[in-house]
């Protein structure tokens, strides 16, 4: 915490609030029928994406994400207006309306995409890490993976490969307790995902994913290790999602009042706010001003997305190949 200056803290708060506000608004708009397709919301997990990505450079560092990718996009610096346009399937979206929520990406920002395939990302970040190592950019590559993705063979293969090739790669498991509707208590054979690190010859650590500062510190250690050429690490963040697997999920598999209690008792943003105001690093009025600003920003993004045109018919046929 001591290494974070006031500007860093303000940036972190702004990003976490942006993700929360973005997701809350998307939740409402989806329920209203304004957003097509599948949407998986990140609300409740903000400290993970932001605590990690605060360490990253836009130009040389890469991340790969999951179905639940909006938070990672925002934390990695993707344009929020473009994201909202994309999720609405509109022209000018981050992927020109061809990706949508599940494939939202911006390679110019080192964001290799949300991924519609569970466990799709880990092999890809091995490649980004190999590119960083080969081209000597000093970059690192991080896969965000869910507890569901932790059980995929691709993930195991990628962790082994990263260790064998000693890549600047980090595997971050956001364990929110449920892969779709199935508990990680059932599906993760070894209890804690972090226990698997030893099997792949890399350090592994369990972190309270609601604690921005714990996330930030653990990520720093892993990223420094990667940048120093000492190879990959595994981090398991224990956290919770405030919404269902996808929007429209009735969540009958969750405990009675589980989400309500979670929202009341465990909010990573409220915790952050408590810490920084109690220690007098930031003042409530500064944070209130950010709240207001973010609120306006997301409202503006939403208005633009609603007003925007859909892609033109000819867009169906473009960007299949670089040249064909």
């Amino acid at each position, binding site marked *: 915490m001591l290494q974070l200056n006031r500007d860093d803290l303000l940036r972190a708060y702004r990003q976490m609030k942006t993700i929360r506000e973005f997701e809350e608004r998307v939740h409402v708009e989806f329920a209203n029928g304004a957003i097509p397709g599948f949407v998986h919301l990140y609300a409740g997990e903000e400290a993970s994406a932001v605590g990690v990505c605060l360490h990253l450079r836009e130009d040389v560092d890469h991340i790969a994400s999951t179905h639940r990718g909006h938070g990672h996009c925002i934390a990695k610096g993707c344009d929020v207006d473009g994201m909202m346009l994309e999720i609405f399937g509109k022209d000018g979206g981050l992927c020109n309306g061809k990706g949508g929520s599940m494939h939202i*990406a911006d390679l110019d920002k080192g964001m290799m995409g949300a991924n519609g395939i569970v466990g799709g990302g880990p092999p890809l970040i091995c490649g980004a890490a190999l590119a960083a190592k080969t081209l000597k950019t000093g970059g690192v590559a991080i896969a965000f993976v869910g507890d569901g993705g932790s059980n995929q063979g691709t993930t195991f293969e990628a962790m082994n490969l990263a260790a064998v090739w000693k890549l600047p790669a980090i595997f971050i498991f956001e364990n929110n307790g449920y892969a779709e509707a199935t508990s990680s208590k059932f599906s993760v054979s070894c209890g804690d995902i972090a226990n698997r690190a030893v099997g792949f010859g890399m350090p592994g650590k369990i972190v309270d994913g609601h604690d921005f500062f714990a996330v930030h510190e653990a990520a720093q250690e892993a990223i420094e290790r990667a940048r120093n050429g000492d190879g990959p690490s595994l981090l398991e963040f224990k956290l919770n999602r405030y919404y269902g697997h996808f929007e429209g999920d009735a969540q009958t598999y969750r405990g009675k009042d589980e989400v309500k209690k979670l929202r009341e008792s465990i909010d990573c943003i409220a915790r952050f706010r408590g810490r920084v105001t109690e220690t007098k690093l930031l003042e409530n009025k500064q944070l209130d001003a950010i709240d207001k600003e973010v609120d306006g920003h997301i409202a503006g993004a939403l208005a633009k997305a609603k007003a925007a045109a859909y892609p033109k018919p000819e867009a169906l046929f473009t960007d299949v190949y670089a040249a064909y």
Partner: protein
Amino acid sequence: MARKLSFRQSINEALAQEMARDPRVVIMGEDVSGGTGSPGEQDAWGGPLGVTKGLHSKFGAARVLDTPISESGFIGAAVGAAAAGLRPVAELMFVDFMGVCFDQIFNQAAKFRYMFGGKATTPVVIRTMFGGGFRAAAQHSQCLYSIFTHIPGLKCVVPSSPYEAKGLLIQAIRDDDPVIFFEHKMLYDVEEEVPEGAYTIPFGEANILRDGKDVTVVALGRMVTLAMQAAQALAKEGIQCEVIDPRTTSPLDMDTIVESVGNTGRLVVVDESHPRCNMATDIAAVVAQEAFDSLKAPVRMVTGPHTPVPFSPALEDLYLPSADKIAAAVRQATRKAAA
């Protein structure tokens, strides 16, 4: 005098020349060097059939990377590396192994550019061995290029000779899209004259190996050699075959095929694949749409049967298309018209 190279050597030379030209080109795969971490020699294998032999010694461990037997891991890594600035050539030892890594090819590599609104460029080449005749049986002998051809975003190359292999592989490495490069394992020892310098053969431009007025014969990969043998035999009977090698199945040069059928009125397609949903049915369908009025006889297809590839030489020889089978199909096509 131009020197002769084997199919194997021409691929090796293409890789070496492109690696020398562009430091972003790296090679990865199972035993592409061989010997990594082992007590004996490094560069012990150069791939199971020696295609990449010597590249590790020439370019070093940072650019010729042995991998664990872990196709999802390293094919995915090649795809990710391509999206992040390298130009990897990954070796999927046998195309039959697509089953353990296909997601990274068809859901990731093939779709990045489109899904990401044109912002992604994924210049990865996946070299893979295919085809029967090696007595390698059901899990090491399939063709499967039609499965990859089906996927938008992928390009599929099926070279038929050493000259073709070098020019098409250099094109593949310089190409900005994901390319699957199919090497028929029975062609590796075939030799022909190959220019020493680097050259490219463009994708989507079929090669007419032999002009003929009577029948158009389209063949891919090793089948091109068999089609030429059949054409020579048939010439003695007075049947002139026009033999076309499409070179790439995606993009596919249908214009050349349709134009040829317009002249000959008859089509025989030779495809080592199983008979359903393969390149032969695909080409026949396009010809039926584009050149129906030119056809003087039903289109004939020479393919493997709807069975896995058998092990026993006696059975595998029955399974595979041959020059005799091709000649018989051509005769059928011409007889039908005469009747």
